[in-house]
């Protein structure tokens, strides 16, 4: 696969499929104005190419002599446009038939149908936006949650790019000092300390990387597994968290044989809650496979809620279950807090528990905030999260190289720092980014962006 050509003129419908009040057809490239001249007649009579730039103009879209629709034309001239090329945007009425016809007209007058992300690719290649911003456009388009939208907006506003710029400046300063010291050994260049500034850089990268888990959860969502013995009240708790009836609730142990998934949202973070079969040593074959499955789901989840009946003594099986869960990814809940408490110790120093009641709602607020804390708490007070796997990998490599540069002889430290700077720059795409990376990024765009 290769990147598409960037020198011709492309067109696409930029609004979502379906019927809307307004629909937009966007055209970008050197012949945008010619295309506009051929299909748009401004109300004032002049041709679009004769109109001043950055102006909204009312007029008619025509197919030869036939009226297609009335529309507003926005007219941007290179390089002051989204793509850095001449761009025409036609705001028509939003019906799919109208939009399709306008697009076909644009194509018949010489434009090419745009592929996914081509407008944004052009914006990047023309230096209008950096790569983080381009990816954020994609992030905004695809955002499924408030957290994802917020992070994409940070990216688009260069918040992340600015932080990377700061790190780059610090690394460049150390690098420049090394170069001066080795090239002017006798001219009294002070061999300034590189340990402190590099450690500061490493600290900053660590802080960013600490947000990567939260960032990936913000975009892809978190999996929250509900485990526990039959009839501990998992399904009731799930319903209480969801605010509506999702699981089949009954008094017969083992009612939830396999598992149920339910989407929910806590503090803007998208979560898929998974209600698993009751975990219990059992001779019932169908249920046994459900139990295995449940333990596996808990292990694969970002967080497991282990729900134990707080009104009856803990059994040997339950103690065994507690020891088979990863404490760092488990919240233990004592259910039925509206009933008398039967126990107050878990017998496992690494675990604490929270009392909840699906009946009274007792402890649910606390539970929500603990779930949120466990899922995104690593990000600390940082509002900006690293949401992109590519960014996280580049930051990890930069950190590794900065670490090596701490101890290496000057000339080798300089090599480490050169690569660190290149790696860092690859995030914003300002330098030497491999074409494959670009293809990968822009292949994930929807058409029209």
């Amino acid at each position, binding site marked *: 696969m290769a*990147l598409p050509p960037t020198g011709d003129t492309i067109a696409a419908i930029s609004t979502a499929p379906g019927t809307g009040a307004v629909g937009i057809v966007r055209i970008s490239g*050197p012949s945008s104005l010619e295309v506009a001249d051929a299909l748009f007649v401004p109300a004032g009579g002049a041709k679009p190419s004769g109109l001043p730039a950055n102006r909204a103009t009312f007029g008619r879209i025509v197919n030869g002599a036939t009226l297609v629709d009335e529309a507003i034309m926005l007219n941007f001239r290179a390089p002051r446009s989204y793509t850095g*090329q001449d761009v025409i945007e036609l705001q028509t009425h939003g019906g799919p038939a109208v939009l399709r016809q306008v697009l076909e007209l644009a194509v018949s007058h010489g434009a090419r149908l745009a592929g996914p992300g081509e407008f944004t690719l052009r914006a990047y290649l023309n230096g209008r936006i950096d790569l983080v911003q381009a990816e954020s456009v994609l992030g905004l388009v695809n955002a499924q949650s408030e957290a994802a939208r917020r992070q994409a907006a940070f990216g688009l506003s260069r918040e992340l790019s600015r932080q990377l710029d700061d790190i780059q400046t610090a690394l460049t300063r150390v690098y420049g000092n090394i170069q001066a010291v*080795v090239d002017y*050994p*006798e001219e009294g260049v002070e061999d300034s300390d590189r340990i402190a500034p590099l450690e500061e850089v490493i600290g900053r990268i660590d802080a960013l990387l600490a947000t990567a888990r939260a960032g990936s959860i913000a975009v892809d969502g978190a999996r929250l597994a509900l485990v526990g013995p039959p009839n501990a009240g998992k399904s009731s708790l799930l319903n209480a968290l969801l605010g509506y009836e999702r699981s089949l609730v009954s008094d017969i142990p083992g009612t939830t044989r396999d598992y149920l998934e339910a989407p929910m949202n806590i503090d803007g973070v998208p979560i898929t809650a998974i209600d698993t079969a009751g975990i219990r040593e059992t001779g019932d074959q169908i249920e046994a496979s459900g139990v295995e499955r449940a333990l596996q789901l808990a292990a694969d989840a970002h967080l497991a809620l282990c729900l134990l009946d707080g009104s009856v003594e803990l059994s040997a099986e339950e103690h065994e279950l507690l020891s088979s869960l990863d404490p760092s990814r488990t919240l233990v809940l004592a259910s039925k807090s509206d009933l008398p408490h039967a126990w107050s110790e878990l017998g496992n120093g690494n675990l604490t528990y929270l009392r909840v009641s699906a009946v009274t709602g007792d402890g649910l607020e606390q539970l929500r905030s603990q779930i949120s804390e466990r899922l995104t708490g690593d990000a600390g007070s940082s509002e900006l999260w690293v949401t992109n796997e590519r960014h996280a990998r580049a930051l990890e490599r930069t950190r590794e190289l900065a670490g090596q540069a701490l101890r290496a002889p000057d*000339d080798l430290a300089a*090599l480490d720092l050169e690569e660190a700077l290149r790696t860092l720059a690859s995030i914003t795409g300002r330098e030497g980014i491999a074409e494959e990376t670009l293809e990968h990024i822009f292949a994930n765009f929807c058409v029209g962006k």
Partner: protein
Amino acid sequence: MVGGGHAGIEAVHAAGRLGAKVALVLPNPDKIGVMPCNPAIGGPGKSQLVFELGALGGVMGKLADSTAIHARTLNASKGPAVQSLRVQNERDGYAAAARELVESTPGVEIVRGEVAALLTEDGRVSGCALTDGSELLSPSVVLCTGTFLAGVVWYGKMQRAAGRQGEPPARHLSKSLRETGHDLLRFKTGTPPRIRADSVDFDVLQVVPADNPARSFTGNPSPRATESPTWLTHTTPHTHELIEANLNESPMFSGDIEGSGPRYCPSIEDKVVRFRDKDRHLLFVEPDGVQTSEVYLQGFSSSLPPILQDDMIHTLPGFERAVIQRYAYAVEYDALDPTQLSVTLMSKRLPGLFSAGQINGTSGYEEAAAQGLIAGVNAARWAAGEEPVYIRRDQGYLGVLLDDLVRWGIDEPYRMLTSRNEHRLLHRQDNAGERLAAVGHSWGLVDDERLARQEASSRAVHGEVERLQGLRLQGELASKVLARPGNSYESLRPLLGESSLSREEGERVEILVKYASYIERSRRELQSRAEYEEAALGELDINSISGLSNEGREALLRERPLTLGAAQRTRGVRDSDVTALLVHLRRKRTVSRETVAAAGD
């Protein structure tokens, strides 16, 4: 060949060795090989050039070693890529050795005189006319005129026409160069005062001893290379006050000198003004012989008036009663804009005309010598009707020098620095022979026997590296033991069994073992750049490529780089432009993996 400085010596020697008939034209043969600045060869970036010259069959290292009185490795603790030899020389001895070498080179005749004009025929150079009316006819002319082109020397605001202290300038050549279509730059440089050695109180100076055992460029150090120290002194607040109070006496600060000076080799006035927060600047005191008669004050170049220089010198520890023998001065001179040259150092404007050294805008003996070799070889080849040669950027410092000069151009005198070389870990001084001896052999400057010696040495070094990767020392791999900080090949030698390696070869083994992972990384980096480097742009219609920034498009149209690598180094071309070019090339499937057989243009 016009001029007998460090560029001229290499040019004359190389052309003579290749069988050319050479006339060396200069006003005064006694001035062959003089050292008008410090009496030293080498330093960071520069020593690598001298080692490369040696590998290619040049002579600077040999001359420096034979007249060395002090040799020291700079940056010894800063890693293998930047370790750089610097040798102090007996000034008069060096010039005498250089003159002897030139006179004994077969086919070389020394012609006393000054060039009045270049002669041309059918758009090519055909020789030169001298001011005495005689004409020297030749298909190749090499200009190595140093600072002599329309040279003006300044002492304070006093100026006189001179190419060097006390020597008349080349008055006519600039005009002839302009008439043949060349653009000239105006540069300036300076030199510090020389002080009578018997007026310096050496007892209060800090001693910087020579390395012992002695180091050398050729493996053949002079027995005297450990004999002399150098010394350190520094400026004082009093020095700075004096300078600040008299800045208006400097032709640089008053604007009388228009030429661009080197930022990296600033005058003491520059340093005081630019770094007002520093209350002292280091100064190196360099002898010009074992029985030194005068010392050179490195770091104290100045264009302030002589009378003030006396007072300034007296503020330096150890120089309270010092007597200046030759005052510091600045010199302004014409240089060719090197972008008019091809990478072979032949003029694009006048075929057959070559130039090397300060006339091409560089500074430093080593930079001059390196170009001299290339210009000399190509002048001889041109005369013989053979294809020109050069060194590529990925082959060594010499390639970086040529590429930087002719592709990028310069706006101040150019000095080699290790940081100019993106492959410096691969282009070390210790492996210059391995990198370039075969090239020198193919040019005819390195004989079979020397090449065989070099190849045997390389085999021995790599064989030893391999052996250490299999040898166990008390259960541990010898290569692992050697790689540990603090261990050296020399210190482990008793444990390593039979080894006939020299000390230098042992150090090479050590570098290859200790820095293996970094060297490998650099090699991969070089290869990945090579794809860019070699991707031919050919006859691309730049206007048809979209995704280029406007500035990038203009730069590409103006400079017409031949390869993607050259495009990347073109001013005004951004990385996103390079990406766009790459995308375009891939789409057109015109990326060629073949090296562009480019003689520059």
